[in-house]
């Protein structure tokens, strides 16, 4: 089983991943409709935030629209069943399931059915689609960064 992983220090904040993502799904250029999001912040931060496919959103859905795809392991939204109620949004600890502003259904990363577009297009190879065991190793390391001494406050904070 493969999964998506970020190599954080490779990201240069170009946001091509967002652009290719919205293009793939909607044939439009619109980062607001992308299922991956890059946070650029001062100082030092260029962070691609990806869905970790953890599944916390599944039980939040009153319509049973969210489930895990057995082939890819990705959590997917059945857009037919989704009513756009938005209960899944707060269930995600990192904010990676949201209601699409145009179609008004929940959208999230589905790993492009096993062939992630963002991985193919990232010019820095900051996004990788690799064996889950290997991914686990990288994820530990990325998470450990949060414990670095003198963490830098993210400015500005949204209201």
């Amino acid at each position, binding site marked *: 089983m493969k999964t998506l992983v970020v190599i954080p*220090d490779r990201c*240069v*904040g*170009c*946001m*091509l991943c967002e*652009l*290719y993502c*919205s*293009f793939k799904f*909607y*044939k*439009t*250029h*619109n*980062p*607001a*409709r992308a299922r991956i999001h890059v946070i650029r*912040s*001062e*100082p*030092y931060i*260029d962070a691609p935030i990806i869905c970790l496919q953890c599944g916390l959103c599944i039980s939040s859905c009153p319509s049973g629209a969210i489930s895990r795809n057995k082939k890819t392991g990705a959590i997917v939204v059945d857009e037919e069943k989704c009513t756009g109620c938005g209960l899944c949004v707060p269930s995600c600890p990192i904010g990676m399931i949201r209601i699409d*502003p*145009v179609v008004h259904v929940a959208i999230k990363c589905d790993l492009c059915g096993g062939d992630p577009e963002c991985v193919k297009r990232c*010019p*820095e190879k900051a996004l990788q689609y690799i064996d889950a065991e290997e991914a686990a190793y990288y994820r530990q390391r990325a998470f450990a960064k949060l414990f670095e001494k003198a963490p830098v406050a993210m*400015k*500005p*904070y*949204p*209201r």
Partner: protein
Amino acid sequence: MKQLFGYAGKVLRVNLTKKKILKQPLREDIIDKYVGCVGYAARVLWEELKPGIDPLGPGNKLIFATGPLTGTLCPGSGSHEICTKSPLTGAWAESRSGGFFGPKLKFAGFDFVILEGRAEKPVYLWVHDGEAEIRDAKELWGKTVHETTDVVLEEIGDPEASVACIGPAGEKLVRFATVMNDKDRAAARCGPGAVMGSKKIKAVVTNGIQGISVAHPEEFYEAVIEAEEALKKNMPNVHTIIPLGTIGLVNIYNSQGALPTKYGYTGYFENAEKFSGETLAKTFLVKRRACFGCSMGCGRYTEVKSGPWATPPHEGPEYETVVMLGSLCLHDNLEAIIRANYICNSYGLDTISAGNAIAFAMDCYDKGLLTTADTGGLELRWGDSATIINLVEKIAKREGVGDLLAEGVRRAAAKIGKGAEELALHVKGLEMPAHEPRGEAKSTALLYATSPRGACHMHPYWTGSWDFNQWTGGLIELGLPWPPPDKFAEAGVGKGLAVKLLMFHGVIQDITGVCRFPALGKEEDCITPKRYARMLSALTGREINQFELMKISERVLNLEKCFNVREGLTRKDDTIPKKMKEPIATGPTKGQAVTNLDGMLDEYYEACGWDKKTSIPTREKLEELGLKDVADELAGMAKTPKI
């Protein structure tokens, strides 16, 4: 109205005097003939600006311009250009910047923002989701670019909006003040910041969720992938610009005796290595950074952690900056250069013009044309870091001798007199940048003399790519003389024709709204006119081939030229500084000088179809380009120089 693909479809027109905001539909008659971005802005300013107005008066207009390719998957789409009448040159100004502003303006639902009139009190503009509000900027006036950005983002509550703003230099109407965006990206040349300052508008902030639509998505996607694959083959990018940044050019240019040193004295600097890209990478570079949608990522992110020149992390420095504040001033301290760059960004000052003005001051001081009486006791010694930092601050704040230099070297030289005008390195008032025309290629001299905005190495195009780098840019099928002649040759080898065609290619990026860098290279490894035409056609659904696109470029270039003619500029203003006609003193290009600019100008005007004596586009040429009304207006002008 038929759906417009690629364009946002709306123009935001803001009258600051009346505090009125108009949302106008994009004029299809203009995009049909001029495509967009600089082309569209040139037509609007041609129609709406009265000739002879004060660029710092309420009659001037400032346009934030994007093109159809801005914000798309086309390489280099993180771009916008600010077009206005320049307070530095009194001529056409187009000032490009990278970052995120251009794309986010389109996501906000607008292709252009036109600022007119003058606000009574400082304001800023918040543009989002098809709407715009004029807001009070009293608390922001006086703040640096970085502070302004932080405060505004917090005030509007959207940390991801893009802020384009001026710093204290723009407020003080320094004639080469910039409009910065996303903190450290600069629309730097020609002084757009002063125009914004004169209108008392501190910032334009933008964001939105409107997508940029595509007429033929599959074709567009294929065209983009093909273009990206071509770019991957561009070895100079792979080996230098990407890993080292534009600052990676320092060692190369020095090795070729093309590094401006000691203000026109020579093209070779013994200590250039100290501020090279290789040195930066080993010392103060934190990481690379990219603009929106760019697979190259040439930006640097730099920090000086301690010492007298300590500087917080920020984007920069670029090649131009390190040379203008480095070898041009006989200065080699990289830390101090980084600090100076940060101060320029903070205050909103063009590093090219600032470095040039400082070196000019040093040259004048060296030759006794400026004394400590003029400088308030400051000794302007070559190579002194403290002097440079001091002068940058003084220029930005218009203090002491800084007030004189803030006028630009042309005006400063006129005021100083005593022969200072022969020392100043500018064309049309725009300070000469970090490409030595005697050392890089003589075509650079021709470019400096004829670029509509003055001494510019990049607009409309970097012509050195042809005879210095020996690249085709995909222009052979469009008539580019090939192979290129000796870079040191002047007239008689096709440079006039080549420069014209290279300029047309550059205008393609300026009218479609993208960065120039992906367009630099050979047929197989850069975005050629053919590749732009393919992407543009698939995006907008308006079929166009590379020949037609170059024709539109010709139209836009002619319009920019006519804008200048209308302001009184003719062949007499297509010059190069006197020092460029004197031989380079040392190094690999010792002895090189520009000896036949007139010959090159003759060739260029002939290639363009312009009158050789005056450089004015002929009626025949203008009518051929569908610019009869422009020809009529020029003919009707009382002061039009007679042929």
